[in-house]
């Protein structure tokens, strides 16, 4: 596979944006400024970005409760996301969705989803739209290791295989579903194999390595766009933080997270390749870093200061007409 340097820099920008966004959210949650529940994506940046760099605004993704990374990777505006997370009137969902329900159809983002296994059938429907309208668009569902056990996911695999839909199952195996590890909850211990059993190409990727994900998803997307039906990729990358902010993580061995930070940092790994193989200067990356840190600083301040939805908003948007 060949890599466009512009694409690579954009990928870096998005991965960095996810990292800084989530680290900032973490601090904000600890300070108690963020309403609702927040599930952080740190450590998994290469999955969302490696996958979404193949997608257009007219391609769709279905997301999970751990959705910030998917949103940023798919190009949802960071300021609008922050306004939403803070439940403000100008949020991307007018402040009524919050962290677990960010959606932006204009970017092909079909919504975070607080129901484990809720989004895959919906993404399948977006793939059906593409097929019905005869476009070469695709849809992708992000699916956790825990979610991979839900019946809705198996149904989605079969449904899209039978209808030969342009659908990509993007499994995020981060080792844990809440406080239980894949060593226990995953019969057969091989998610990709399950997808393959429903009749589609399925490969595994290193979710810490942008290039590994990018390559595998690239093949899946080519397959799907060409009208050959669905494909699946299972990427492995531990999350760095708790299931949600506040989780004591008693299920993790001592020092696991420190080790991950040292040895499994997708940004460090990506940067090393960018510098060594693509002649991209570290200084250029530092500039991006700073821009992003500044942007997030700004947008968090804006979000915090922004007006809440009016009380009327409680009653609106239930129906289009009633």
């Amino acid at each position, binding site marked *: 596979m060949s890599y466009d340097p512009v694409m690579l820099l954009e990928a870096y920008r998005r991965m960095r944006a996810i990292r800084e966004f989530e680290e900032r959210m973490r601090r904000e949650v600890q300070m108690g400024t963020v309403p609702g529940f927040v599930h952080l994506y740190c450590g998994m940046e290469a999955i969302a970005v490696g996958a979404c760099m193949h997608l257009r605004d007219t391609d769709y993704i279905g997301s999970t409760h751990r959705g910030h990374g998917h949103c940023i990777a798919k190009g949802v505006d960071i300021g609008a996301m922050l306004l939403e997370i803070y439940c403000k009137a100008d949020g991307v969902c*007018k402040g009524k969705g919050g962290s677990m329900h960010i959606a932006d159809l204009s970017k092909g983002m079909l919504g975070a989803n607080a129901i484990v296994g809720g989004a895959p059938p919906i993404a*399948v429907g977006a793939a059906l739209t593409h097929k019905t309208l005869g476009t070469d668009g695709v849809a992708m569902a992000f699916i956790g290791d825990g979610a991979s056990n839900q019946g809705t996911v198996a149904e989605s695999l079969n449904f899209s295989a039978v209808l030969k839909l342009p659908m990509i199952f993007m499994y995020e195996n981060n080792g844990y579903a809440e406080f239980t590890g894949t060593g226990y909850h995953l019969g057969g211990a091989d998610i990709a194999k399950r997808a393959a059993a429903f009749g589609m190409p399925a490969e595994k990727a290193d979710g810490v390595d942008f290039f590994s994900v990018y390559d595998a998803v690239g093949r899946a997307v080519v397959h799907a766009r060409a009208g050959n039906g669905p494909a699946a990729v299972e990427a492995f990358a531990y999350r760095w933080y708790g299931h949600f902010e506040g989780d004591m993580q008693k299920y993790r061995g001592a020092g696991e997270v420190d080790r991950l930070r040292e040895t499994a940092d997708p940004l460090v790994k990506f940067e090393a390749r960018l510098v060594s193989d693509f002649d991209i200067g570290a200084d250029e990356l530092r500039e991006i870093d700073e821009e992003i840190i500044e942007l997030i600083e700004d947008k968090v301040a804006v979000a915090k200061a922004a007006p809440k939805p009016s009380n009327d908003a409680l009653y609106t948007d239930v*129906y289009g007409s009633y």
Partner: protein
Amino acid sequence: MAIKTYREALSDALAQEMRRDPTVIILGEDVVGGLGGTAGEDEAAGGTFGVTAGFAAEFGRRRVIDTPITESAIVGAANGAALTGLRPVAEVMFMDFMGVCLDQMLNQMAKFRYMFGGKCDVPVVIRTLMGAGFGAGPQHSQNLYAMLTAIPGLKVALPSSPADAKGLLATAIRDNDPVIFCEHKLLYGETGEVPDGEYLVPFGKANITRSGTDVTLVAFSRMVLLANKVADKLAREGISVEVIDPRTTSPLDRDAILASVGKTGRLVVLDESDPYCGMASEITALAATEAFSSLKAAPAKITPPHTPVPSTPHLEQLWLPSLERIENTIRATVGKRAA
């Protein structure tokens, strides 16, 4: 106008809307049938009850889509398609099967618009068969529309006549909100005048099928037929029953019901679903809270008992509200006993 069956009226509406709008698609189990068998790919079913017979031939299999037996995927796919530009009409063969796909109704389609701050339309229709009296047993005979009526974001339609079947289904398809369209299996063979050409019945607008002054009888779906019969019989005896068919439970035409109760001062509600937390209780509560001072007598509910629908034929008949029971309840409510 022509005389048509309820089934034909449903087909009419579907075909009308599919001709009109290329984004309307149909998906469900055996809506065409025959794929993957040994007889070639000809239509083998056309819907379990024949409503979509001939559709694949006219609209093509790309728009009339057979699915595996996976209702969560069917309804979920309809949801995703609706968010992204299609107007899917998905079939959940029997309403009882909402057990295996409720999440896509309760937590997904119903809430998208709200969760997403109004920035989407969700033009999905779920057609589903309900009702007892068909010998289909406890897992294929339920009337579960009250559960759905209580879910904000959903609309619920219950056509009781061929004309309404056509007009409400066309409206459902054009509606930008999710609609659960509940067809009663015992109504499929019922006939009635159905307007030709484009025909739409608005949601939230009750049909007063009999005008009357002594008592308001609100009935839903197939029960409207029983209500009309009893009203006609009692009319000959000088008891004037106003029969109201709300046609949609969400939105509900509260004004029509309250106006009628205001006029008659008496209310009986006839509903084929469970006695508890159903439309019979809802309408009764509506009248009690909003038209209390008009009420001249205690309102009455007529429903099946709080039991599953038995497979046993004579017990199933006993389970259903009977003409006799309706008549007696109305007589008791208006204070006139049988002569």
